[in-house]
């Protein structure tokens, strides 16, 4: 154990700051190393980004659904991007689409979702005082903040932010002449994303290390809540895929600023040849989608994990198929790395290779279906409590299933020829990845709000918020599938000048109206969230009568989470409605020796091991340091 002694040198100093000096305002709320504060910082930043990102979508939806509307009321905000006659600038339309994608995928559903809940729940649910490295964790947030500031600043450039789509395919993104957004806007996009990648790697490395090394006594891998499993797998996906995005971005930066030809080849602009020779734009797509596809699961898996926990708790039933849930998440994570080329079926790739990727893509339906069935069978005959968190979790399952079904269609390399880059794709990924993950995020916020702020959110308001959002989402995206089948391409400024699109103008308008209504419903959430932080009802210790360790902490946990010893863990986290038990839940820290009336035979055998578990190494970071 010489290693631990050696650790004193490094950690000792840091720990002193926490225990023996009163923390200043800056240490406590701004440059905090406490995982709970960092989680809240991620959450609030994520919410701000979501407001910006979703507002953008409403503006371009108005352009698509009501092309004749007068937008001059937006001139105070957007200035000359709205013309004198109230028309949205077509270049700015492209910028809005691009920034909406970037913001929602990376800043809201990656940083806002993973950053919030991995940070908040990992130490609390595995029984750790804090993350493995509080300093790296703080650094992770502030790199994200820096990335946010740069991306936000790019919105105010005179030439506009990046406008080549969130996938930034070269040559559009590589040549400043290609589009005004490909100048300074693209530069800032790339710089911001570089910092974002650093932030994700710092965070992800920390999550993995914490889950593997800092679990409390008795918290074996088969007793980990599924939330923790999902965060662990998400972090591993990020660790493997974000460096690849960094690679592709780096080569793009060299092409843009140093004149290399990784992605550029024989291009003529206004009749003049560019000096670049021998590059391959398809190479960028390979590199980008090697991140891009796992990124879909980086966004989705935390939502799936949160849903598992919320559904089991509020059905008052053990999760159905705990091991199958873990196996299917591992399966999805593995498959995520070998399906990227299904985004590139129409790049002229070898049709045989296309069918290989099609086959691998369709296999994803298997683990996804396992998850779908397990959620439904967990709900089956449960004593369901319809808290807002539960409603959103059920809604998440619904969106995951209905969005996943169209994935089977899109994964087919022949059908993709017709559907590629149409609104069918847009509808598909908004349901299965966008809305489903957002519902996971909402479920998590409603469920863990009492632990975060020690207050309860208003239940009725939450339920109203759910129904408006749920119905709104389907009203937006189900019609959008039809628009896509009809052949509407993505990222077009307007459809009024083509014959085949005329018939669908009313449907586009319908989608826009639904989008505006669901957008307005989100203000219910914003009000509920911020009002409850200050004026909400005080939360009890364990409001949802849940089993996991975070509910054994004080109502508002201080730094270090538990006063006194960290509890030991004796059972899995899904002992709900166990036959014979007095209550319908048995928390993880209750030993089997105290629940003789409800134990199964093999659990009685485990009683003998309890003393050993209790005597084990505490893994207590704070004690080791002293």
């Amino acid at each position, binding site marked *: 154990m010489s*290693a*631990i002694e050696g650790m004193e040198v490094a950690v000792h100093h840091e720990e002193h700051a926490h225990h023996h000096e009163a923390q200043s305002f800056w240490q406590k709320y701004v440059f905090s190393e406490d995982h709970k504060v960092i989680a809240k910082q991620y959450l609030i930043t994520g919410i701000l980004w979501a407001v910006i990102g979703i507002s953008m979508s409403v503006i371009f939806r108005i352009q698509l659904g009501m092309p004749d509307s007068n937008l001059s009321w937006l001139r105070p905000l957007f200035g000359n991007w709205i013309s004198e006659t109230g028309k949205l600038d077509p270049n700015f339309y492209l910028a809005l689409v691009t920034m909406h994608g970037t913001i929602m995928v990376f800043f809201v559903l990656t940083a806002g979702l993973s950053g919030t809940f991995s940070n908040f729940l990992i130490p609390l649910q595995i029984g750790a005082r804090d993350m493995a490295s509080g300093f790296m964790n703080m650094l992770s947030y502030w790199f994200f903040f820096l990335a946010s500031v740069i991306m936000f600043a790019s919105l105010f450039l005179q030439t506009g932010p990046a406008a080549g789509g969130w996938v930034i395919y070269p040559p559009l993104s590589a040549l400043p002449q290609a589009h005004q957004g490909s100048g300074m806007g693209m530069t800032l996009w790339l710089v911001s994303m570089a910092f974002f990648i650093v932030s994700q790697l710092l965070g992800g490395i920390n999550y993995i290390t914490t889950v593997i090394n800092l679990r409390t006594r008795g918290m074996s891998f088969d007793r980990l809540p599924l939330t923790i499993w999902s965060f662990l797998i998400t972090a591993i996906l990020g660790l493997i895929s974000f460096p690849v995005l960094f690679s592709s971005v780096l080569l793009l930066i060299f092409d843009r600023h140093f004149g290399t030809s990784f992605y550029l080849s024989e291009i003529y602009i206004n009749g003049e040849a560019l000096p670049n020779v021998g590059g391959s734009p398809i190479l960028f797509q390979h590199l980008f989608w090697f991140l891009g596809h796992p990124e879909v699961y980086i966004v989705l898996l935390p939502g799936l994990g949160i849903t598992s926990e919320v559904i089991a708790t509020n059905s008052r039933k053990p999760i159905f198929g705990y091991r199958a849930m873990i196996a299917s998440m591992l399966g999805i994570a593995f498959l995520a790395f070998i399906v990227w080329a299904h985004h590139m079926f129409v790049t002229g790739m070898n049709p045989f290779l296309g069918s290989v990727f099609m086959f691998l893509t369709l296999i994803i339906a298997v683990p996804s279906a396992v998850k779908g069935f397990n959620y439904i069978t967990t709900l089956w005959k449960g004593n369901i409590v319809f808290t807002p968190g539960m409603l959103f979790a059920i809604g998440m399952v619904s969106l995951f299933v209905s969005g996943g079904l169209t994935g089977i269609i899109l994964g087919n390399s022949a059908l993709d020829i017709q559907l590629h880059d149409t609104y069918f794709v847009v509808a598909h990924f908004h349901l299965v990845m966008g809305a489903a993950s957002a519902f996971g995020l909402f479920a998590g916020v409603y469920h863990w709000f009492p632990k975060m702020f020690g207050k309860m959110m208003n239940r009725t308001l939450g339920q109203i918020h759910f129904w408006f959002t749920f119905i709104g989402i389907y009203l937006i995206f189900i019609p959008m599938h039809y628009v896509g089948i009809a052949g509407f391409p993505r990222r077009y400024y307007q459809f009024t000048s083509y014959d085949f699109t005329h018939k669908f103008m009313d449907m586009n308008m319908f989608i826009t109206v639904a989008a505006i209504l669901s957008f307005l419903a989100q203000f219910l959430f914003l009000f509920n969230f911020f009002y409850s932080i200050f004026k909400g009802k005080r939360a009890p210790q364990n409001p949802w009568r849940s089993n996991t360790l975070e509910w054994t902490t004080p109502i508002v946990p201080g730094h270090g989470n538990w006063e006194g010893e960290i509890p030991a863990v004796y059972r899995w986290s899904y002992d709900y409605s166990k*036959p014979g038990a007095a209550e319908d839940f048995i928390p993880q820290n209750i030993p089997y020796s105290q629940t003789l009336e409800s134990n199964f035979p093999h659990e009685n055998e485990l009683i003998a091991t309890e003393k050993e578990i209790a005597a084990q*190494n505490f893994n207590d970071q704070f004690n080791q340091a002293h």
Partner: protein
Amino acid sequence: MENIQQLKVDKEPQETLAMDPMKFILWLFLVSIIMLFASQTSAYLVRRAEGNWLEFEMPKIFWYSSAVLVVSSLAMQWAYFAAKKDDFKTLKIAISVTFALGIAFLYMQFEGWKDLVAANVYFVGNPSGSFFYVFTGLHGFHVISGLIVLLFAWRAVFRFKVHSKSLRQIQICATYWHFLDLLWLYLFVFLLTFN
């Protein structure tokens, strides 16, 4: 309820698996570097397969620099053994040698770039040359970060903070330095094979 019964927990309670978090963090960091270079080298192969590929001879100096880095890695291991035995005199010499050889490696890589330019292989031009500069440059950048880690270890050694009971810092430093050595050997062989 059947599914609960399927969930057999091992009879013997195991200590919850735990290693030194800082070393674990280092290993994960190495994974991200591996992915960075894996993606770069596979991009190289994908692009090379498309043709229009400039072939050139790798300058001789990269052979010598590779040897220098291997020796530097050996010196690092020598330093680690010395620290384990509390042999401070050897430790100081060994870690200084490691550092000096690291600097020498960087200098030789830079000379290698000059030779490439002399051979009309430029950063801007055919991607085969550009990739060569990117690989060596990215690796060089990581060697600089390794030198910074080494510098901290060096300072700790000269303040007698590294000894047989406090090996963590030099272990982390040695792991990283060996990794950078292996990484370069991989890139070197790769560039030789697929020139």
